């Protein structure tokens, strides 16, 4: 585990406003939980945010927007050559056909994996990620090990995901330094001939659309 998503026990450079009273019977809360509670209460009290809007944002990214969106795009591209052509020439418009639009997906680019080319996506400078089709990024994508090494030793990174690509395959890393958001179009695995879109979408994983895994490497028993 990278261990960088838990609360750090050591204090950095602030006190966290915990007065030490009134918590005798409550579960201990972390300094960060206290801090967030204070900022949220303050923002509500000052009229800077509407609590209902906060709940809507959480619900959107916890329940409504996620990698199943991207999986539907991929399955459509596998089964509809005209759609795939649109997706590769104007990804933003093609993805919008599903209604997947908005924040952190305003300007999309789709990268096609082939026998000759494998694409993988990183954001070395922060955590840019195509929210509209993949939801919020996993912790590893936002963390120093991946961000530092994806551009320097991409094959070593892939190996940690259990993905080995041949020396003859061109590996293209895409660093999301601007407001373009990248989605990898994985190769359709052999043995899925005749499957319909829904069944295909079910085998498309988030990591394959970031480009850190290949679907062909997935154990067959994991496939629906």
């Amino acid at each position: 585990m990278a261990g960088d998503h838990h609360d750090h026990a050591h204090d950095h450079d602030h006190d966290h406003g915990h007065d030490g009273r009134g918590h005798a019977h409550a579960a201990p809360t972390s300094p960060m939980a206290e801090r967030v509670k204070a900022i949220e209460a303050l923002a509500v009290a000052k009229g800077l945010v509407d609590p209902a809007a906060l709940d809507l944002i959480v619900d959107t990214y916890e329940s409504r927007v996620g990698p199943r969106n991207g999986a539907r795009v991929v399955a459509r591209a596998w089964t509809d050559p005209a759609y795939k052509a649109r997706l590769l020439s104007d990804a933003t418009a093609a993805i919008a056909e599903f209604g997947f639009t908005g924040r952190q997906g305003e300007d999309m680019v789709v990268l096609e994996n082939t026998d000759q080319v494998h694409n993988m996506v990183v954001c070395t400078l922060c955590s840019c990620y195509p929210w509209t089709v993949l939801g919020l990024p996993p912790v590893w994508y936002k963390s120093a090990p991946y961000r530092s090494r994806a551009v320097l030793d991409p094959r070593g990174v892939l190996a940690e995901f259990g993905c080995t690509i041949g020396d003859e395959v061109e590996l293209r890393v895409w660093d999301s330094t601007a407001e373009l958001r990248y989605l990898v179009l994985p190769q359709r695995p052999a043995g899925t001939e005749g499957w319909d879109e829904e069944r295909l979408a079910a085998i498309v994983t988030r990591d394959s659309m970031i480009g850190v895994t290949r679907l062909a490497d997935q154990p067959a028993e994991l496939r629906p």
Partner: protein
Amino acid sequence: MNGAQDLGGMMGFGPIGIEANEPVFHAPWEARALAVTLAVGFLGRWSIDEARHARESLPPPVYLTSSYYEIWLRGLERLMVRHGLAIDAEFETGVPDPAAPALPADLKPAPDAAQAAAILARGASARRDGSGRPARFTAGDRVKVRDINTLAHTRAPRYVRGRVGTIERLHGDFVLPDAAAARRGEDPQPCYAVRFAARDLWGETAHPNDCVHADLWDDYLEPA
């Protein structure tokens, strides 16, 4: 800014922390941190670029030992203070302080849940096609990344500065983050995907079949 956010090519962070069946949020406070950060951002007092600069301005020891949502919160606090929405003492208590200056007179009302949903669905594209200056480069051109070192915000990572690459594609005209973060207007200009051979970035130890693309603005480049 040569801050701790610019991680590409650094070493020593250890393995990728891959987590099976990772939840969207690892603690309830993370969900609230995301929501509050986005919702206060909806007031339009700062650009995404200024927000990124606030995060990357954290001292490197703090940045590197903070979880991602902790970095977001610290950035949000700095932005709220800078833009007159709060004073530091209020983050300790979560209660408006009589000593705090009045909120800006031109502050928009906080979006309600329906308005927040619309904002998320619409997003905020940084594309400004047709408003930038003519593109100086075309696909296939060899370019060198300028050696930009600034305390201000820039999206040219250190690992490409001074390196020679090839224009892969022209994305169109996009808001220049350096200008937006400094509140110098948008200065829209051509943004390109630039392809760098891994060996041109990292030397002979890099795989001969690897390349890295970064999205770079016209201002960052000169003819090679």
